[in-house]
């Protein structure tokens, strides 16, 4: 069985390690992704692997799971008798057989198959598959009852929410008798409520003896869930400590390698409104309603935050303010002009900054160079072209300037944007958009997937733009972020927007309640 049926208190069974990594080193070209990493995992323990993007967390877990080969180092996994045995490197099959289960950040599920099929996939015997399915269903039901990971087994994956899909992934691992579960950034796609539910389930599983590695860069979650924390930086283990003895600021400093100054939002007097939405209805391209009777104003020198669970109209609001969708009813005014019929090009021409939710889909063209990406929206401007000919020298120089100002780390202006880390990509987009000195900024999930250092950078830039006089609409699922930098916060729920309340009157708890119920 995946989860040992009844175990005594986890403290007792935490005697021997279930997994031991020793001296794992992995090099990619000139980059040492893992540099002599050693760590141990005990039965029933939740170990948090904390580190910034690019610190080597995912590489390490991919080495463990056999997706990559380590250049040196050993991996040992305890067998059913508790004795450690070396794991055959470079073989995911061996890792599976040794009881290691992995839930990737991007799920590996077949959309058109049912949850049951996805769990069973790859384990069916060739003969008598039907009989196997009946037995499998019973086993999964038992697993669900014990773990709390309930899903509709007959629903196709595409009909399930992201949180439910994640449960299917965990069930898949448990069904294969995993004794070690690796979760790579599992909360990146979840709402605060779903995150809480996941944590309860994981703690229950650990109490039954499952050893869990929780990969994350979110300090709050690591502190809430784990028993022990290992901090990685630049491929090395820089600290290993018990969660009870760790502090937030200490962890942030360990991760980043330098003190991270807390973000400070100076109070400012807002000016005239730059964005005015009045009684706005928006429908998706396929006719489904997105926004209903939304009224909102964003003024100069203020950040208005939009909180809400994904899928409550954020996409419609962002598309409306990027020129991808139009209102079906109501008025939209930007900088005093009627913006109801604006195209994406109009937004660019009016110097409005748009930071899209999906960087790689809307924000950049991965296979083009940095300097080309900086010119996408500005290609008609005289700095970029003369009589239809690209001014490549001027564009490269401009790219160099933006890279220096916004600390975009890459080999040079000719580097392909697809090779940049998420944080550097976002800094590039910020640089491109903020360099126009925009009167209005749409920031849609601007820090999603970024690490502590990059998040602080983005916040600092947005606050600086606010001080310069910009009005900013910040759509975010990260309540801490909203409370840290927004002046007022409104909640989107089923396409309707609450009144924007001053941040001083709000808390995570209050916002969570507003998000869950109609505000």
């Amino acid at each position: 069985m995946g989860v040992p049926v009844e175990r005594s208190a986890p403290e007792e069974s935490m005697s021997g390690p279930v997994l031991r990594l020793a001296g794992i080193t992995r090099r990619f070209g000139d980059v040492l992704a893992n540099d002599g990493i050693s760590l141990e995992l005990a039965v029933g323990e939740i170990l948090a692997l904390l580190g910034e993007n690019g610190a080597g967390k995912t590489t390490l877990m991919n080495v463990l799971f056999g997706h990559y080969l380590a250049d040196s180092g050993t991996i040992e996994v305890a067998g059913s008798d508790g004795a450690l045995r070396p794991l055959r490197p470079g073989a995911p099959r061996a890792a599976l057989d040794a009881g290691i289960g992995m839930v990737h950040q991007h799920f590996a599920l077949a959309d058109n198959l049912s949850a049951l099929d996805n769990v069973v996939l790859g384990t069916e015997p060739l003969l008598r598959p039907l009989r196997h399915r009946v037995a499998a269903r019973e086993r999964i039901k038992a697993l669900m009852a014990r773990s709390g990971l309930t899903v509709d087994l007959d629903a196709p994956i595409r009909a399930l929410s992201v949180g439910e899909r994640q449960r299917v992934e965990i069930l898949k691992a448990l069904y294969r008798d995993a004794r070690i579960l690796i979760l790579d950034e599992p909360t990146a796609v979840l709402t605060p409520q779903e995150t809480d539910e996941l944590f309860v389930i994981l703690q229950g599983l650990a109490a039954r003896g499952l050893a869990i590695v929780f990969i994350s860069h979110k300090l709050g979650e690591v502190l809430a869930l784990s028993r022990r924390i290992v901090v990685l930086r630049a491929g090395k283990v820089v600290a290993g400590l018990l969660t009870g003895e760790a502090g937030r600021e200490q962890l942030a400093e360990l991760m980043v390698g330098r003190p991270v100054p807390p973000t400070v939002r100076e109070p400012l007097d807002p000016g005239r409104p730059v964005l005015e939405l009045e009684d706005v209805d928006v429908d998706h391209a396929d006719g489904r309603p997105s926004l209903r009777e939304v009224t909102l104003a964003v003024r100069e020198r203020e950040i208005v935050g939009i909180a809400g669970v994904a899928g409550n109209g954020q996409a419609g609001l962002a598309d409306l303010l990027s020129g991808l969708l139009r209102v079906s009813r109501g008025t939209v005014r930007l900088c005093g002009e009627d913006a109801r019929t604006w195209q994406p090009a109009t937004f660019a021409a009016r110097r409005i900054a748009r930071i899209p939710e999906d960087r790689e889909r809307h924000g950049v063209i991965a296979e083009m160079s940095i300097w080309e990406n900086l010119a996408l929206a500005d290609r008609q401007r005289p700095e970029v072209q003369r009589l239809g000919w690209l001014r490549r020298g001027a564009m490269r120089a401009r790219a160099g300037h933006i890279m220096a100002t916004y600390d975009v780390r890459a080999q040079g202006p000719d580097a392909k944007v697809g090779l940049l880390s998420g944080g550097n990509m976002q800094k590039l987009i910020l640089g491109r958009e903020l360099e126009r000195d925009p009167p209005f900024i749409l920031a849609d999930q601007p820090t999603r997937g970024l690490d502590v250092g990059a998040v602080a950078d983005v916040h600092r830039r947005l606050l600086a733009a606010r001080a310069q006089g910009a009005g900013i609409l910040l759509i975010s699922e990260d309540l801490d972020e909203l409370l840290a930098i927004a002046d007022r916060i409104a909640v989107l729920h089923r396409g309707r927007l609450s009144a924007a309340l001053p941040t001083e009157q709000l808390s995570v708890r209050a916002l969570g309640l507003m998000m869950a119920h109609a505000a």
Partner: protein
Amino acid sequence: MRLEPRAHPPLALTLAAPVAAAALALLICALPLAWAGAPVLAAYGRILQGALGSVFALTETLARATPLILTGLAAAVAFRAKLWNIGAEGQLYAGALAAVAVGSGALGLSGLLLMPAVVLVGALAGALLLLVPALLKVRLGVDEVVTTLLLNFVVLLFVQMMLEGPLQDPMGMGWPQSPPVLPEAELPELLPRTRLHLGLVIALVLAGLAWLYTTRTVFGFEARAVGANVEAARYAGMPVARVLLRTALISGALAGIAGASEVAGLKGYLTQDLSPGFGYAGIVVAMLAQLNPLGCIASALFVAGVFVGADSMSRALGVSSYLANLIVATALLTMLLATLVTRYRLRRS
């Protein structure tokens, strides 16, 4: 063994890979050659000699490369914007038809203007023909792979109709062929008593222009952006539909010029077998060149050399000239393998 992406492919490898790929293709094709009963080494010797071995062979290869450069460019420009123009063959015939209609004196043009007019109407006909599927794509979302491919057959049948009707040569003894173009309309020979004509110069100049367009102009920049990530291009305010229509006009015009150049430079009149699949071979040329317009020159020369050489080899040794198609197809596959090798490295377990 596993594949790992290389951050920076070494230059030597990038240059050596295509050569190795061509060699590998020849190695693989030794088997069917031997099967066909030809002495393999002698056969390859014949191919080399037939393609490059004499001034005549060289001019034949260059003459054959001329339409291939143009259809290769047509495919490269379109594919770069992810406009899948599979209809260069049809656009080539449309260009040839228009060129013959004007060049044989039907419009009453003559003198110095006639030759440029022939090339221009050829370009125009090809451009307009591709504009139709492109409009269907941007307005109604009709898949251009299907429409451009099927239009090839429509155009071929239309050409047949014209050659058996209004455009039939009254002096042609009833053969389905057009009247010859007027001498003023002909693209002049580059070397006397060879089939090499001004079309080659036009093709080379257009390759240079296409390269400038792709890498140096705002229009080309937009086309590349739309091809690489259409959603990001739209988000940045690029007029995606206009970019695709512009690309269609350029691509169709290049293929149309290929037809006009064959009629006015090589054949002198239009028949239904003007092109032995130059339009389709252009796709191979473009893929071999990795959609680089200047690379299209080299890959067109390679493909043309193999065809001309294999023709000569098949005549000399009495084996099927379809072996040429086989060699070109194998070369395409090995070349794709070569690009894989330059982009990835093998790592031993």
